[in-house]
């Protein structure tokens, strides 16, 4: 019997146990990014910008040059890096508390300037690291520690759809929303990430990939239930699709 290995850890991923909770899909997103970096052979010239939030330790897991930006400022740091080192491939990896809340100004203006960077936006509809508070992306009626009876739109407004919002701007080249909840979505997510990095490498402009993700711990669910909840509740509110594509 001959054995052929058809799946292994990507080479640009560091061989350590992550600090993420069991079933957290940050790990899947990290792996996809590492796989794309391997396949495009850009490890040597890639620069990652880590956010504040659960994925703050991104630089411990993906073996590329990395910055750690102040809360929400990753797109600004990434813009500067890309302008100074135009041959590098720069991406920021941010959660919803980081990107859609405190970092709203930075992401909108980086997108509007058409910076040739890639932004990976992990949307799990809650603040993870700080213990499950309501995020700008929390669904109406969804419970969090700061809205124990569920998000009330009269008090806290409605979930922000970042892709739709950024797609109204003229400058961004590629904007898409994918998910990593189940294998069928994960396969498509990798295609989207590949396209996002290629958009940057070809100099076409700003690329933005929103990844719907689970947070079993703060949602108070088993990991498998969380993936089902994402499909049933998050996907109708945040429809998957391509919102802008390079010409």
């Amino acid at each position: 019997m001959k054995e052929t290995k058809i799946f292994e850890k990507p080479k640009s991923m560091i061989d350590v146990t992550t600090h993420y909770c069991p079933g957290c899909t940050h790990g899947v997103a990290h792996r996809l990014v590492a796989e794309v970096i391997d396949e495009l052979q850009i490890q040597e010239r890639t620069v990652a910008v880590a956010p504040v939030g659960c994925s703050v330790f991104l630089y411990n897991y993906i073996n590329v040059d990395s910055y750690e930006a102040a809360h929400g400022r990753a797109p600004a740091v990434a813009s500067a890096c890309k302008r100074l080192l135009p041959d590098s491939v720069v991406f920021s990896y941010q959660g919803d508390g980081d990107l859609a809340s405190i970092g709203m100004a930075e992401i909108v203006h980086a997108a509007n300037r058409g910076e040739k960077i890639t932004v990976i936006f992990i949307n799990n509809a809650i603040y993870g690291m700080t213990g499950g508070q309501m995020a700008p992306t929390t669904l109406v009626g969804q419970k969090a520690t700061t809205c124990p009876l569920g998000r009330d739109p009269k008090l806290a407004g409605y979930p922000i759809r970042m892709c739709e919002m950024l797609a109204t701007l003229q400058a961004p080249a590629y904007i898409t929303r994918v998910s990593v909840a189940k294998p069928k979505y994960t396969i498509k997510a990798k295609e989207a990430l590949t396209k996002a990095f290629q958009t940057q490498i070809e100099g076409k402009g700003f690329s933005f990939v929103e990844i719907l993700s689970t947070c079993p711990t703060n949602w108070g669910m088993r990991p498998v239930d969380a993936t089902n909840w994402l499909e049933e509740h998050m996907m109708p509110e945040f429809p998957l699709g391509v919102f802008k594509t390079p010409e």
Partner: protein
Amino acid sequence: MAKGRVGVNEERCKSCGLCVAACPMKVLRISDKINKKGYRPVEQFKEGCIACRMCAITCPDVVLEVFRLEDDKACNA
């Protein structure tokens, strides 16, 4: 249908069970062993793996490696 085998890096597994749910052939389960972190790692408990990689694609901790098995005879035929 292709035959396969799943390799488990037991010390990395956090027992989340996403791979168990993703496996179309239901050949994975949470084992009775306990790793150094205190989690029960996943195991392939029966034959029937078709090397589809669904488990590895869904695993957040890159615990799984997938091998495709090929009969030497089939290769020669």
